[in-house]
């Protein structure tokens, strides 16, 4: 066979050959390395927001990157998690608050997904957008434990087994640990049959169903999982800021979540981390241009998307390839955004007839 480089007897899905656990270790080392050199309250704030947005982005990676569901509801589940945890921690501890956010977020996501089960593609997207608007109204009007307009104040800082995370350093470290846990859970999904089935669902659900894949169940699962991640991120945000208002969960947040994944790289688990870093860091660097910030920020986004269609993660992949002096491998074509017909057999008749 032309182009063969694999011992067939030892063959396995190439995703299992990637060193995701080393990647997790690398992300951990970089994160805590950065944390050790950070000095200012402002920088701590950026790191904390990055960790939370990374969890949010990883959740959206499960919903959209793998599951292919164009959902505008991540912001709403972020808010639901925040309010759920704020409500639960009036009497319970921080971890119970996070647990409540997960349970409530996943249950609401499941009920919503069942209701819109038959809606596909754009109809599903519109359904999730409508859900977001409804959620904001509910956050604003449901004042059983919040003030008017959905404001909640005095949410306690995280505390686990008498250990209070009440300094910027400790809080940042805790949020990074949560982010690494979220990344680990996504890696476990990546290194399992669930990934290939979700991608099959994403790219051709009808063909996937003829292969025996439970497409309906899988669609629900990916949506609920991603929404659960968003709820956890929301819970962490609530305890980080100590207060909530409905403005935090506006449509702008849902757009930012899309940007996190698209900018970072939709085909990689590291994409959401890079995208979150950009979304948190870039606007802050443009404060000096005040009135023109929106224009410049938009222009930068367009340029990044044109120059790096695989997202920011594509830059790192190119650099890594350069460092190793390595040509493209057969499995390089496996990225959803990398289509190389000439990889095998010259690709001369790949499009026949």
């Amino acid at each position, binding site marked *: 066979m032309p182009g063969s480089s694999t011992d*067939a007897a030892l063959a396995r*899905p190439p995703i299992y050959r990637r060193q995701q656990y080393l990647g997790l270790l690398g992300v951990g080392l970089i994160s805590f390395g950065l944390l050790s050199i950070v000095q200012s309250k402002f920088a701590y704030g950026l790191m904390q927001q990055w960790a939370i947005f990374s969890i949010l982005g990883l959740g959206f990676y499960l919903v959209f990157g793998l599951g292919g569901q164009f959902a505008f509801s991540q912001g709403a589940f972020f808010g639901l998690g925040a309010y759920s945890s704020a409500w639960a921690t009036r009497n319970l501890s921080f971890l119970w608050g996070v647990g409540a956010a997960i349970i409530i977020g996943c249950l609401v996501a499941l009920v919503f997904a069942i209701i819109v089960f038959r809606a596909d593609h754009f109809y599903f997207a519109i359904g999730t957008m409508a859900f977001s608007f409804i959620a904001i109204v509910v956050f604003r009007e449901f004042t059983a434990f919040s003030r008017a307009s959905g404001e909640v104040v005095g949410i306690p800082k995280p505390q686990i087994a008498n250990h209070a995370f009440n300094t910027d350093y400790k809080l940042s470290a805790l949020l990074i640990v949560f982010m690494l846990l979220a990344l680990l859970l996504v890696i476990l999904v990546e290194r399992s049959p669930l990934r290939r089935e979700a991608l099959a669902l994403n790219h051709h659900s009808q063909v996937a169903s003829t292969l025996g894949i439970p497409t309906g169940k899988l669609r629900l699962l990916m949506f609920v999982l991603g929404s659960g991640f968003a709820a956890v991120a929301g819970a962490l945000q609530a305890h980080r800021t100590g207060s909530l208002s409905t403005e935090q969960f506006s449509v702008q947040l849902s757009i930012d979540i899309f940007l996190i994944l698209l900018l970072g790289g939709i085909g990689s688990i590291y994409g959401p981390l890079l995208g979150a870093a950009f979304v948190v860091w870039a606007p802050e660097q443009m404060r000096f241009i005040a009135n023109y910030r929106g224009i410049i920020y938009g222009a930068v986004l367009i340029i990044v998307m044109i120059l790096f269609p695989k997202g920011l993660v594509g830059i790192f992949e190119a650099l890594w390839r350069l460092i190793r002096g390595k040509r493209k491998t057969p499995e390089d074509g496996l990225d959803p955004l990398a289509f*190389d017909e000439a990889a095998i057999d010259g690709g001369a008749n790949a499009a026949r007839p």
Partner: protein
Amino acid sequence: MLRAHEVSVHFGGVRAVDRVSLDVPDGAAVGLVGPNGSGKSTFLNALTGVVPATGRVEIDGHTLPFGKPRAIRQCGLARTFQTPQNFTELSCIENVLLSDSDRRLTGLGGSWVLRPAMWRHERQRWKRAIETLDRVGLAPLAEHSSAGLSYGQQRLLELARGLIGEPSLLMLDEPSAGLNATETVRLAEILKQVHAQGTSLLVVDHKIDFIDSLCDQIVVLQLGQVIASGSPDAVWRDPQVVEAYLGEA
């Protein structure tokens, strides 16, 4: 054994398949032929639940649920498509794994909790997938992206995907379309081996030699209706079939 009884498919006012009855006995290879637009692919789509249909389909005495592709696949019916429908973002081995009938621990439980057991099942699935790819000659490309395969290789990959679950009936929709003469002969050889190993075949195709070399029975459709069925020799001598293919003399 597959038994289709008066299967019909309507698209609005158009009756694409009109009360077609057809049997595929255990171990048989049945060819389904007919001019373009005669309803062959639509009939396969109806059997595999891809389009809504009426009538009754039984496999080994069990009635198949129309419109439920997954349930139909679980009953042992596998298929290929007119245009290869591989997942180009996955490797060849992953494409084949998707269709494995052993689906134990492929969900979140296997992913997050029962990983050692998941790995055990997964390794068995890899082994089966490689063996199946080997049957069609694609084992050395197992880890390659399916996006880079030639058209002929894409056909073979889709065939491997149909074979992995050891289906009782494999339905092939124009498997030789777009293949050159050498590739067609190679495909026929592979399918003969598959047939010899006990898998029943229902083959839709336009290449008469290919169908004749493979099938012991042929059913001819025209305008959604069966106009002839029987052995290849008898069918090709049938005046209605001659007229359908060549027009009235």
